[in-house]
Each structure stands twice: as C-alpha cells, then as structure tokens.
C-alpha cells in the first residue's frame, strides 16, 4: 500500500530532474550504474549494520568519504532508516520495518536503498542453491543469497551436482548418484520435501534447467550414445532430442523469452552455441576477445547478456552480449549465475583446495565473498 506512493514520488522526482536539468540526467544515470557510490551509514548497530554494509557493498555502494548519500536510522526493536542525498535536507525516503527477523528487516531496507541508487530489482531477500561438499559426501545446500540461513536439503551421502530452481523457487532439480549405479535427475519440492525422479533414462541424466516461463526443461542425456541436449516439458514428459553431435554437449541455459537455449559444444575446443527450443540447427555464438574453452553459460534474466567461464584451470568470468560480440573478462572464477537483477553474478573461486562462492557486481567489478560455510561450495544457482 505504501509502495505506490514511494514509486510515484521517485518517478515524479525523476521527472522533475529531467525537466530541470535538460540533457544532464543522461550522464547522471550512466554514472549511477557503473561507479562505486560512496555513502555514510550511521546509527545502526550489530547484525543490522553488518547486513546493511554487506548488501549495499554487493551493488558497489560503499561506506566511504566524501559520501554522496547519507543512510541513517536505528534498530532498537525494529529497523528504521532514511536515505538522503548529501547536501539535501529532506530524505529521499524514511521508512520503518516491522515483522520478520532483524536480518530480514535490514535486507528490506537495503533493497529500498538499492532500488533508489541502482534502479535494479531487489535481490537481498532471495535464495541460492549450491553443491556442498563435506568430507566424502556432497549434498544440495540452500541459503539466503549472502550464505546465511543454510539448509542442507539432501542427506543421501552420495554425489550430487547442478541444483537449479523452478521459476518462483517452488522446487529444485538436481543430478544425483544416490542410486549408485546411475546418474539421474530428481525434482525436489521445497514446500513438502518430497522428491520424484525427473529423468532416469539409461546413461547420464544431468544439468536440467527449467525455462523462465516454467513450461520446458533443457537437459543432457547420453541414452543416444553421446551426451546430447534434449528438451522436455517441465513435468519431464514429451522428451525431444535437440542435438546429435558425437562430441558431448553440456551446460544448457535459457533465453529470457524461453525460446532459445545456449549450451556448450566441444568441437576441438568447448564453444557456446544457441539453438531454438523447438529444434533446428545450432548456431555458434560469436565470442571474441577470449581464448580457450568457453563453458558454464548463464543467460541474464533481462535477456541481454550471457555470462560464461573462459579457460581451462585458470578460469575467468566473462560476459558477452547475447547476440554475440566482444567478451569482457571480469574476474578470476568459474560457473557464473545471474541474480534476478541481471547485474549481480554469483560464481565459484578455488582457494587452497576448496571452492567458495563469491558475488560480483558486473558494472563495477566489485567482488564480495558469500559467508564462509564449512566445506566446499560450488555450482551456485540463484532463485529467480
């Protein structure tokens, strides 16, 4: 009920800015996207303060001088806070948060600040799933986007890989070795905890990804004699083979409109290809500026970019326009996955024998580690 007022206010202020300053706002908006925004954060304590600092830092909004914006408030009982432009008396907004935990109140406040300063959709109350290796076993872990509130979803004491979300986060698909002699895909409902076999064909069944519209799933099966790309309905039915290559295909991901699939094809080296979800011939994605293998693609939810991993061993996270072109090498790491805001990536870095999850603000190349969880974390999938 309060949101429309705030949106109206923001829109009106923006309109007023445009009216006042003529061509200047264009420069202003570009700056707002790509530079680190210095802010001051005052009045908060303990967990609320650290959540605020972490969340904002993930989007390149950092506590430093001279501050362009002042974030102030308090957290005795409930979080109350305001966002004010430096040198301006009246706050952009002033709000109090009720219900939930102190952490979730702080996340909600940070979401409101991010909406104003970065014009992106909120991500601080979203979930991630990942592969969690501890000792000899691997399980599916799920947590808040920052690594807090970990829930270990499986207890199979078997290998597991590639958790991925159904749109809206109602269920996960993952690849499991739980039956020992086969590698199958299971659907795991988060509401009930029940799971069912999603794909159990002879040979390898892996890397299932549900389309953003929730109607189809792309997956890799080897029943035809080589690991190839298939598509099926999101209940597992109506299976259709899309590729027929002798060398293996891997790592499918979906376009925002659910009409195309980007995947990895090894022909000499691993390259990215695109194919219509209805079938037809795969088309190479033209990627310049990087050498070596191109693997683990993820298509941004806004449809504009594809993040992927370049290299073999010395991996780097790269982003290329979805239509192809010059790839930008961003940071060392592998296996990127987009946040719902199409701005933040979560990915894996290898550090002294284990894998850790990191967050990357793509425009500013600012990297933050997700909270350290004991064990090795990899293959992150962001609920969106």
């Amino acid at each position, binding site marked *: 009920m*309060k949101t429309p*007022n705030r949106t109206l*206010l923001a829109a*009106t*202020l923006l309109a*007023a*800015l445009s009216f*006042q300053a003529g061509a200047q706002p264009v420069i202003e908006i570009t700056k707002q996207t790509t530079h680190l925004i210095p802010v001051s954060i005052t009045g908060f304590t303990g967990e609320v303060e650290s959540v605020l600092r972490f969340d904002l830092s993930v989007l390149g909004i950092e506590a430093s001088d001279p501050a362009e914006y002042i974030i102030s408030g308090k957290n005795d009982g409930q979080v109350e806070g305001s966002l004010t432009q430096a040198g301006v008396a*009246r706050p952009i*907004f002033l*709000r*109090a*948060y*009720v*219900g*939930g935990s102190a952490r*979730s*109140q702080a996340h909600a406040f940070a979401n409101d600040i991010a909406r104003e300063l970065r014009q992106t959709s909120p991500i601080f*109350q979203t979930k991630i799933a990942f*592969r969690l290796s501890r000792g000899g076993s691997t399980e599916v872990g*799920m947590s808040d986007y920052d690594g807090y509130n970990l829930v270990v*979803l499986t*207890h199979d004491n078997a290998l597991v*890989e*590639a958790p991925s979300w159904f749109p809206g986060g109602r269920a996960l698909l993952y690849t499991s070795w739980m039956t020992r*002699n*086969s*590698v199958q895909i*299971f659907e795991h409902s*988060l509401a*009930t*905890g*029940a*799971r*069912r076999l999603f794909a*159990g*064909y*002879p*040979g390898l069944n892996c890397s299932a990804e549900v389309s953003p519209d929730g109607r189809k799933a792309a997956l*890799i099966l*080897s*029943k*035809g*004699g*080589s690991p190839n790309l298939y598509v099926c309905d999101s209940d597992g039915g109506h*299976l259709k083979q899309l590729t*027929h290559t*002798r060398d*293996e295909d*891997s*790592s499918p991901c979906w376009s925002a409109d659910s009409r195309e699939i980007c995947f*990895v094809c*090894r022909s000499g080296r*691993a390259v990215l290809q695109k194919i219509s979800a209805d079938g037809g011939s795969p088309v190479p994605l033209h990627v310049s500026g990087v050498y070596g293998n191109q*693997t*683990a693609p993820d298509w941004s939810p806004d449809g504009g970019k594809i993040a992927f*991993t370049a290299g*073999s*061993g010395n991996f780097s996270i790269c982003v290329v326009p979805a239509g192809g072109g010059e790839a930008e090498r961003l940071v060392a790491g592998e296996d990127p996955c987009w946040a719902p805001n199409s701005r933040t990536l979560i990915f894996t870095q290898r550090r002294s024998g284990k894998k850790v999850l990191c967050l990357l603000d793509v425009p500013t190349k600012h990297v933050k580690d997700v909270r350290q969880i004991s064990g090795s974390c*990899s293959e992150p999938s962001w609920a969106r």
Partner: protein
Amino acid sequence: MKNLNVFGIFILGAALLAAGCHRKPASLTPIPGMEAPPQPQTQTGGIGSGAAVNPEMPVTTERTPEGIGLNANGKYNELINGPHDEDRDKFKADTVYFEFDKSAIKPSEEGKLQDVANYFKNNTSDALRVEGNCDERGTEKYNLALGERRALSVREYLANLGVDPQRIGTISYGFSKPVESGHNEAAWAKNRRGDLVLITPKK
C-alpha cells in the same frame, strides 16, 4: 535546484500525508516471514515419495552418428539390478587414460582394451561398468558430460572389438573421484581416465 527542492518537498509531504504518518515521518514496511523450507523426508539411498520411472525407455542398440544407444534392458542392467559382485581390481592395469579435453582412445590404450575384449569373449555371463573421470581443469557440468563421453568411447571401442555393447554400462563422475590430488600434469594425466569394473552374477 531551488525549484526542484521546493517541488520535491511538496511531493514528499503529500506522500507522507497519504501514508498517514503525520507525527513520525516513517512509513511501515511489513516483512513477510522468510520461512525455512521444511526438511525433505530423509531417505538415505532412497528416492522419496512420488517416485516414478520415466515410461519411455528405449530398447535399442542402434548405431547413430553420435554413438551406440544405451539400453535399459540389456545384460548390464539385468546384472546390476540383481544380486551381483563388483571387482575393481580385475582390470586395474587396463585403466584407460585420455588426452586433455579429449575423449578419443589413444593408440597406447588400444592393447588394454583388446585384453578386456578377449576376457568378455570367454566370459559371456559377465558385464562391465566403465567409469569416466576428468582432471580438475574443467567446470563441473562440462566435466560431467566429458567423463560420460570418455566412458562411452571405451564402450564403443570394445563394441567394435566384438563385445555386446549392452553388456557394458557407463557412469560419469566428472572430477568428483580423482586418484591424485596434485595440481600438475602428472596428477591430471592420472585423473583423466576410464576405470573398468567387472560385474559378475552373485556367486
């Protein structure tokens, strides 16, 4: 800027009035509880409720451009789904090694597979599992598919030597089961492999 401030203050005031916050200028944003999902029904080694096997299991040993099709009802599956023994040592010396990022059988490995093929010609009630593995220089989903392709290449090579491919099952472990933990070519070369496991009816 002056006009903007006046305008902004006016709008802000109107919004705050609309929000009903006269004395305390803070609107309330209720946080929906972020519930932890219920724990899954833990069934170690089991599938859980609602399990259903895909009905459309192809029964084929077709040769296609991509390889030789896998069969749910072949000798391998018959053995593996019944009482059986597994021997990891029998073909230990015949472990098949691969080039980096490749799945083709190297000439140096051909003799090993000839020995394995000869064994199966003389032991017609046995089956084989080929376990495909990779080194650490690939991303996880990529390695999983590459490991399976390597296992399938071994299967295909044995089929070409006369072994019924439906006596051979494959499984990929990607990089999850290295035999060497080093980060150098010596370790990588040992990890890029196909392990051969003999499956026999329970004695």
